[in-house]
């Protein structure tokens, strides 16, 4: 891991991420990631105050361990991203609020913003995405997060279809990207 990792991350973000690992990879899978990150002490973080924070460097160690162990496992990462959204925002809030909140829950040198918001299409720009900053790592997790976050704010019959330009994951700037989220409306 290289770079300057300053910032803070609310405990509730870590809890949601660990819960997502637990759901998709089960207990030993979650432990594998924490062990690789040398962060086993965070295993019981759910018992702590969700509004307190950990330092961003510790959080980034978990993400780096995840990206190392789940190399070439894009389906799993996408599913983990969906679960991460589910546990971080379990109650129905709209997509715009989710984008605002994710920026305020993870405070570091990154930015997620909505650059277009039309009836049937929302375009999200992610600058210096923290979930895929390593060279060679695509951003399946955060795509899953965005897709599920929008999906759950829509009526149940509507469907989110997403588009993302193919990234050259060996480009050091590949963690700056745009995701188009198209909404397929099904009127009854």
């Amino acid at each position, binding site marked *: 891991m290289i770079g300057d990792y300053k910032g803070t991350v609310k405990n509730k973000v870590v809890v949601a991420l660990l819960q997502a690992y637990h759901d*998709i*990879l*089960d*207990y*030993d*899978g*979650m*432990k*594998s*990631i924490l062990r*690789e990150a040398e962060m086993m002490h965070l295993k019981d973080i759910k018992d702590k105050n969700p509004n307190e924070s950990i330092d961003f460097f510790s959080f980034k160690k978990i993400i780096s361990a995840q990206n*190392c*162990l789940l*190399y*070439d*496992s*894009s*389906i*799993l990462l996408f*599913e983990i991203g969906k679960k991460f959204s589910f546990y971080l925002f379990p109650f129905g809030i709209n997509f715009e609020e989710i984008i605002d909140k994710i920026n305020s829950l993870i405070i570091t040198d990154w930015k997620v913003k909505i650059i277009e918001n039309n009836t049937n299409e929302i375009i999200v720009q992610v600058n210096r995405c923290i979930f895929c900053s390593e*060279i*060679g790592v695509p951003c399946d997790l955060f795509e899953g997060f965005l897709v599920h976050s929008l999906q759950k704010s829509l009526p149940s019959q509507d469907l989110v279809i997403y588009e993302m330009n193919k990234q050259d994951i*060996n480009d050091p700037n590949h963690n700056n990207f745009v995701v188009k989220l198209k909404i397929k409306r099904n009127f009854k």
Partner: protein
Amino acid sequence: MMDEGDKKKWAIKLTVLGDAAVGKTSLINKYITNSFKEKYQPTLGVNIVTKDIQIQEDNSEIQFLLWDILGQDKYELTRQMFFQGCAGTLLVYDMTRYSTFERVKTKWIEDFKKYGKPDSVYLLIGNKSDLKDSIKASSEEGKLLADKIEAVEFLETSAKYGENVEKAFRILFSHVLEKSGVKIDLE
């Protein structure tokens, strides 16, 4: 593959597959930490460990990601996602339980071919060879099955005493690397 300066870094995903309690976790533990636990504790989901190998000739570092995937049937759907990107596997059965031997041909090899990478490689492993008085699947049957499923090798291992454990992983690594165009003798 990633380039770090002049050094090439590779990550290769491998699995260990087989019925519950055939000794998948014990084989990995023996190989990675040279330890063995008598008491059986089932894997919950997937346990992932890494093994780094330096290749001087090629100025490369290869990180093998070893996925120890649970054997219980109730996790069928999740398990399919675990196979994505997998370049090789050890197909393990317990030599003292014939049903685990049968399941290699009726279940594990089929699943691996269906969900793993095309052209991936696999070894057939008969584990618990130290329990000589209880063996139900003979060496001859193991060899025949390995030929039938076109495994690159058949080995009998004892995770308890370490017999052939390192050899099994090294053969798997060598064959996977060979498929990736890296010729090196780790055996």
